[in-house]
């Protein structure tokens, strides 16, 4: 029940296309869902996060869509660019819980 399942494991998208990464969770107590972006040789960095009181959050070309009833959330990258090539991790945690539960990661490659 503590797992966060992330898919796909890897993704190749043409420049200008839409990249979509999906995550699913079981624990209904989760109420904070961040996405982290990791470039090779670097630590992960927070990209965007959402709470379940909204169904969508957009920051520039990055959008999180959240489906509370399905217990799923996804990251959409519009107009994908080669600079977006990185590994993306979804995560989840519950109120007053110190620990993030991480997805396994998606390696995204944007082809020029």
């Amino acid at each position, binding site marked *: 029940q503590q797992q966060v399942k992330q898919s796909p494991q890897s993704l190749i998208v043409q420049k200008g296309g839409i990249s979509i990464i999906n995550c699913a969770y079981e624990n209904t107590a989760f*109420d904070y869902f961040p996405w982290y972006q990791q470039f090779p040789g*670097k*630590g*992960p960095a927070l990209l965007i996060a959402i709470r379940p009181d909204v169904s969508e959050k957009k920051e520039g070309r990055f959008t999180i869509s959240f489906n509370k009833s399905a217990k799923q959330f996804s990251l959409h990258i519009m107009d994908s660019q080669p600079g977006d090539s990185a590994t993306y991790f979804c995560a989840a945690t*519950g*109120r007053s819980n*110190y620990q993030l539960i991480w997805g396994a990661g998606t390696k995204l490659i944007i082809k020029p």
Partner: protein
Amino acid sequence: GAGVSQSPSNKVTEKGKDVELRCDPISGHTALYWYRQSLGQGLEFLIYFQGNSAPDKSGLPSDRFSAERTGGSVSTLTIQRTQQEDSAVYLCASSLLVGNTGELFFGEGSRLTVL
């Protein structure tokens, strides 16, 4: 410093040796985390500090692993009698807030290679 600093950035050691990995969190961040990331894999939680105490050590893989934090700041992860399966990148993260509202700020990691 402006961010989380980890040292060494790279460490090559022989099987059976002890290693120490250091983490300098962002000043004022009370929460500190250690993670392990094997090549091309996800993040494996090791230990969490709140101040100088470690309420959760459940992720430490064996009793060869230990960690401490002093002065509510610097943390050291020690691996005794290293094994080849310990080879990985060890990431440290810090957070200003306790709980799920705290963004984690990661260092660039310490890459450990055990020959």
